[in-house]
């Protein structure tokens, strides 16, 4: 059991590091990929265990340490995104179909981006006064690119998983 925890921790830490250092330095639009979010969606969909939240606390810690954000919010952002995704999976969407995965990706991405942006805005509002991000066309443009790129990533990963395992259905779930 401990070996499995160690392997998972190293995997999440490596993914976080790749996200921070490698993905951020790639040309547009590849730098909009969110590998950790895709890992979160798939790990929840395939295992669904709430104790996996600790791996995303670790991811948040690494993000806070290496992105050096204005306010240390990632240690809360990732676990909350995990809980939100889990809520969607348990109450709204299935963990079998492609459309379901894409919908979860959409809502989770929106939740994650809004949570971080709102936190930075509140911090910026009290320290130096900053413009509301939802009024910026740049923000919506950026959100659209992020969601599109993450959709493509989830699509590719879904088909890879579908090729390896029979647990996932490609497009539709047929009711008999």
């Amino acid at each position, binding site marked *: 059991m401990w070996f499995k925890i160690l392997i998972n921790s190293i995997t999440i*830490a490596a993914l976080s*590091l*790749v*996200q*921070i*250092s*490698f*993905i*951020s*330095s*790639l*040309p*547009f639009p590849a*730098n909009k990929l969110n590998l950790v979010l895709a890992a979160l969606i798939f790990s929840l969909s395939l295992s669904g265990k*709430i104790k996996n*939240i600790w791996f995303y*606390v670790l991811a948040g*810690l*690494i*993000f*806070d*340490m*290496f*992105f*050096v*954000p*204005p306010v*240390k919010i*990632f*240690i*809360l952002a990732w*676990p909350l995104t995990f*809980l939100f995704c889990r809520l969607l999976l348990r109450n709204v969407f299935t963990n079998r179909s492609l459309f379901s995965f894409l919908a979860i990706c959409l809502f989770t991405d929106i939740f*994650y*981006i809004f949570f*971080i*942006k709102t936190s*930075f805005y509140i911090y910026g509002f009290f320290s*130096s006064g900053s413009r509301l991000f939802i009024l*910026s066309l*740049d*923000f919506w*443009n*950026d959100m659209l690119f*992020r969601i599109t790129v993450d959709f493509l990533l989830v699509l590719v990963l879904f088909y890879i998983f579908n090729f390896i395992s029979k647990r996932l259905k490609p497009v539709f779930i047929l009711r008999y």
Partner: protein
Amino acid sequence: MRRKNIKKTFIIAAIIGLLAFLYFTNIFDFAKEKIYQAINPAASGLYSLGANIRNGFESRTDQKELSHKVKELENDRNALLVENARLKELEEENKELRSYLEFLDEKKYSYKMAHVIAIGVEASSEREEKSIVIDKGRSEGLYPGLGVVDSRGVLVGKLEKVEEKASRVVLTTNGSCKLAATIQNMERTIGIVSGEMGLTMSMELIPQDEEVEAGDLIVTSGLEDDIPRGLLIGEVSRVNSNNNEIWKSVVIEPLADFSDLIIVSVIIP
């Protein structure tokens, strides 16, 4: 069953809240240093790999354009050689005059070289991504406000936030970066240079009677305690002037190549 799940979720949320509190109060600092030491080399390696991919993707291969650019650069080089010779003479004269007048030695400053390990902040848009993270921090004597230069000595930004072994550098084109600067014109106009939209910089409130032209160089004025005088920031690309107004402003093109930042130096006064 449901009550058990709610209780479980509540306990996990409480533990996360406690850990977050301990984290924000810096109780885990002893472990952070070890983590930085272990991960920083991998982070800078990954960043270099990504930056090389980005540069390879963005580089132009048009033969004609390249040869035209080479010709332009050769002309610039020849003009700079002449200027350099003249400046060397002036430097010698300056040294001699200083020794006659027994002036104190010019302030010396030291550099701390650092690798870039990340760009921007997660979830930031293209225009907001005008910051970088370097692998040096408080343990190396850095603190917010210090200037950061590239390999040619051109100012790229200043330190905004400093952790134990990592720091965020806000680039000169970032709206939150303000620098005390001087225009190298006849009047040596001083002012504040601010980043604009992540692309350029501007200096406002320049009196109408001061002559400023496109091509004038902008350097740091030395009025900030932590950034020495004379560091090149950019050059004037456009002058916005209206005779009906008291002030004019200039648009400044940065001279640093932000796409090629892999190693930078932090100036410690």
